[in-house]
């Protein structure tokens, strides 16, 4: 096998292998139980064969008038023992290994979540689409089979082959050796050989499925245009071509897997046939008892169970590999993102409201045709309020992401209170800078839990006060479950306006020194917005504020604006407008 491919397969799976290794004890115990089940199955069939042959020969001898005896109780007990052991160990094994797999799933999810928590804003926003998330969970599920579908059965089969060959060698070394040679080559083929034959097709299958999803999405989303231009059939032909490619790969996989299944049966069959012939020859030479001669091929026959599942699992190894590769790529993305680079940052700006400066800041997303921001200079004195206006796409959200360090600028410098943003410690930054994002994200949890994101220690009275500030207290009090009411997935059980106000309440529980508010009153009626503005004004006193707004003067403006700047196409496009005295 070419080394480079092998090495890369091993390298791809290594991080996940290491994750499994943390539960080594459990994995070994689970594999041990699997082995015990296989061994009991072998013992049951082999001993039964021995027993029947021994009794038949004894019966014949008795009929011939010879006085021979056979202890029927020990083998009879042995048969019952193997029968019970096989049943019990199978049950315990399934239970135990399922427990292990679920533990591994918890590990995998935890690890992956940790990885994603370190990704930057751009990487995350490209991956927020629900189809991507579904794929992510599918990848995790694929990887959790690494132990139970691939590693454990392969290891157990190998051990069973070694043990069985050793056992046969005790009676007849030649038979042991022949079984070892035949079964070991079969094992190699069923694992490595199958994996190699199926690798290209199983990876190709994953890619084709992905391409098909993408094209189908286009097809369904663009149905109006495709239909009117009469290009439906042409686009459908593209879909068909991908599906044909997919099915070519799947057909190849099916043939390879079927070949493996047939070969597994054939290899075990050929082995017991060879062992039978060797044992019969030894019996004829008087070197072996008749019952043992029967025991040997039957023991090999029972091995079928240990090999049968291997080809199917290993033919599809490419899918596991692809899943691991995608998840590895996610980790690699973290390596280049801001959070990872800034791990060592630990400085803290002086206490009190933060002054902010942006000096010739530029931001260029990889692959974008034009920069999102270029040469942006502005400064916000401590404790003042700046309104940054602009149409959607002008770069307001990019500024918010830069200020909250979800993105790193591609050019220029940002300082908070005179300290470079990239030097500020992560915990300090999160404590002192708060941001109300344009889209409020709520979790599928209770009202209280969502609010406590702002302050985990807040008591109920404080939560109620925060709700009162955004005029949700009466509404919440009328709910049968009060603060324990669940808001549903993404806050779906409450209205959009309520979700926004809840997001604001969550922010009011914090004590930040710089506050970034993206369209704080969007989706609220004018009267409510006006009342909220007054309370917000009070809370914002003594903090620096950046408002991001589409346009001022349309509805209720955010309170206490000192200065207004307008963004167009990623740069300041008009003279700043002083509303009140602006210290420069």
């Amino acid at each position, binding site marked *: 096998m070419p080394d480079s491919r092998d090495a890369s397969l091993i390298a791809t799976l290594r991080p996940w292998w290491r994750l499994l290794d943390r539960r080594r004890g459990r994995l070994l115990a689970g594999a041990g139980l699997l082995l015990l089940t296989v061994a009991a199955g072998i013992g049951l069939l082999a001993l039964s064969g021995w027993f029947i042959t021994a009794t038949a020969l004894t019966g014949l001898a008795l009929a011939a008038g010879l006085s021979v005896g056979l202890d029927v109780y020990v083998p009879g007990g042995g048969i019952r023992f193997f029968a019970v052991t*096989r049943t019990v160990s199978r049950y315990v094994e399934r239970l135990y290994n399922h427990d292990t797999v679920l533990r591994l799933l918890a590990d995998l999810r935890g690890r992956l979540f940790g990885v994603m928590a370190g990704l930057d804003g751009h990487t995350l926003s490209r991956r927020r689409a629900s189809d991507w998330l579904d794929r992510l969970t599918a990848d995790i599920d694929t990887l959790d089979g690494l132990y139970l579908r691939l590693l454990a059965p392969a290891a157990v089969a190998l051990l069973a082959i070694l043990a069985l060959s050793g056992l046969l060698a005790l009676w007849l070394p030649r038979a042991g050796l022949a079984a070892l040679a035949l079964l070991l080559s079969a094992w190699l083929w069923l694992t490595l050989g199958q994996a190699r034959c199926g690798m290209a097709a199983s990876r190709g299958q994953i890619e084709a499925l992905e391409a098909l999803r993408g094209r189908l999405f286009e097809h369904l989303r663009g149905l109006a245009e495709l239909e009117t231009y009469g290009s439906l059939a042409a686009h459908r032909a593209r879909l068909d071509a991908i599906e044909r490619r997919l099915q070519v790969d799947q057909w190849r996989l099916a043939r390879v897997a079927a070949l493996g299944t047939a070969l597994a049966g054939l290899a075990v069959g050929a082995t017991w046939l060879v062992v039978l012939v060797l044992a019969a020859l030894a019996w004829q030479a008087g070197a072996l008892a008749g019952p043992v001669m029967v025991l040997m091929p039957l023991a090999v026959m029972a091995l079928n169970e240990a090999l049968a599942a291997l080809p199917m699992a290993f033919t599809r190894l490419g899918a596991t590999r692809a899943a691991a590769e995608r998840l590895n790529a996610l980790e690699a993305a973290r390596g280049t993102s801001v959070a990872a680079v800034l791990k060592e940052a630990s400085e803290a700006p002086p206490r009190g409201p933060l002054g902010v400066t942006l000096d010739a800041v530029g931001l260029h997303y990889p692959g974008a045709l034009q920069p999102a921001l270029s040469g942006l200079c502005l400064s916000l004195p401590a404790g003042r309020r700046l309104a940054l206006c602009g149409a959607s796409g002008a770069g307001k959200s990019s500024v918010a992401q830069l200020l909250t360090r979800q993105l790193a600028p591609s050019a220029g410098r940002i300082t908070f209170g005179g300290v470079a943003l990239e030097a500020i410690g992560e915990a300090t930054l999160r404590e002192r800078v708060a941001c109300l994002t344009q889209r409020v994200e709520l979790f599928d949890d209770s009202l209280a839990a969502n609010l406590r994101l702002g302050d985990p220690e807040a008591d109920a009275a404080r939560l109620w006060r925060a709700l009162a500030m955004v005029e949700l207290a009466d509404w919440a009090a009328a709910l049968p479950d009060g603060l324990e009411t669940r808001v549903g997935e993404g806050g779906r059980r409450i209205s959009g306006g309520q979700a926004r106000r809840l997001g604001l309440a969550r922010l009011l529980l914090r004590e930040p020194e710089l506050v970034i508010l993206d369209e704080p009153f969007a989706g609220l009626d004018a009267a409510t917005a006006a009342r909220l503005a007054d309370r917000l004004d009070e809370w914002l006193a003594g903090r620096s504020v950046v408002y991001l707004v589409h346009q001022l003067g349309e509805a209720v403006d955010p309170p206490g604006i000192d200065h207004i700047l307008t963004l167009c196409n990623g740069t300041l496009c008009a003279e700043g407008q002083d509303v009140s005295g602006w210290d420069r």
Partner: protein
Amino acid sequence: MKADTDAEAPGLTARAWLSRLAEGERRYQRLALLAGGAVGIATIVQMALLAALISALLIDERALQDLTPWLLGLAATLFLRALAQWGQEVAGQAASLRIRRRARAELLDHLERLGPVRLTGHHGAGLAQRLVDQVEALDGYFSRYLPQQVLAVAIPLMILVVVAWLDWLAAFFLLISAPLIPLFMALVGMGAERLNQEQFSAVARLAGHFIDRVRGITTLQLFGRTAQATREVEAVADDYRRRSMRTLRLAFLSSAVLEFFSSVAIAVVAIYVGFALLGYIDYGPADELTLLTGLLVLLLAPEFFQPLRSLAQHYHDRAAALGAAAGLVTLLQEPPDAGRGAEPVTKAEPGRPMAPDSLLELDGVTLSHVGRGRVLGPLDLRLSCGETLVVTGPSGAGKSSLLQLMAGFLAPTEGERHLAADARFAWLDQRPLLIQGSLADNLRLAAPEASDSQMREALARAGLAALLERLPDGLETSLGERGEGLSGGQVQRLALARVFLSPAPLVLLDEPTASLDARTEARVIEALGRLAAEGRTLVIATHHPALLALADRRLALEAALVRETVDA
């Protein structure tokens, strides 16, 4: 086995759909069954040969050399059995591949018939995902479960007959080990069913929690709560583990029962045969047993249970397929609008003759939605060649519906729509379609035969000449997934370039300048002006005042009330 995930609605159920799909691909399924049956027969023959060989060696004391033909026969049987096994799997897969392709085509045909308007109620990416993955989830059911369902009855019966012929008492032991095969299967089924349901729902809940937290990860970052959330993700997964283990303990019992019977049957048969051979049993056929028959009965005992165990293993394929089919059948049950058949809707509809210069006529059309009542009309409208009609009105007045009606995406509830015989039209969406591929691929959607110079010309007219010059590979520049790297205005103008390329005389535009800033809007309007100057007929639905300047004629819609004003 009990009825489960069947779709709620009357008519097509998940099971019915699955069997209809299976119906259409009988040939390969029969082949799989035949091969599976051959495996069963080969197994019996192989075991018989083995028992006979051993008996000939040990009891008749014949030399191994004399038995060479038997050995060759055994080898041949082994080979044939492997071949049949291969055939069963491959034929099953061939059937499944064809069925899946047909299922996907059927679904896609149906969605195309539903049309763009009806599809807006669905999440596009989710729908595509379902068409791919839920159809794939049908695989195991057709390729493995269906043939095995028959084999799990046929093969044990075959073995039972052979064993009964050898020794009816041993056959009786097998039979009481598996009291009645259907009952046994129900037991397996219930256990596996429960296991599946528990596991599906536990995994779904777990995935739901995980996705919920990932979706909100930016918020967690901003609040500095990621470490805590990571611990929570692990804790929730662990909690699910503990809860699902409690139910798994019960669910696994059913397979343990199967395992128990299979093991006990071997043990009972071995001990019975052994004692009979020793002459300890005087009852029934016991004293007629020989090593040959005794050994064969023993060897067949595990094979009696093997097909049932395979069926239990494939049981989750069935559950997965039923779950997927239930979801897909709800799509198939959505009836398309009358008048939206398999035929392309751009064809002229027979009816009364139209005025010579008119492109499209609406005669007393109304449009009603279930639950919302009448949303449009009654409305009479005649569009003549070369005019520009601007449709205005508050949101909800039916502007988009009118355009969709003109395009034939919706059929009128009352009244008639007439289209000139050769009329083709172009559609400009609020969110235009961008396909993955080059700029040229995207343009050719409108005119597959367009030459490079025609495409350049169209881009220039749409105001994208400057962009084209900046692109590294010109027309062959790849636009990337979902048009990343193009601004909203550029995407809109690219769609306009498509309109310029297409020969369609009638152009329908739904809010062509929504979500554009003033400067970009002005450029798009400029391009629209050029389009009108080419002599095309434009129908523009909008509430932007700037677009009104283009109008030859205006149509102001008010909620379910129409007033037409004619501009000079």
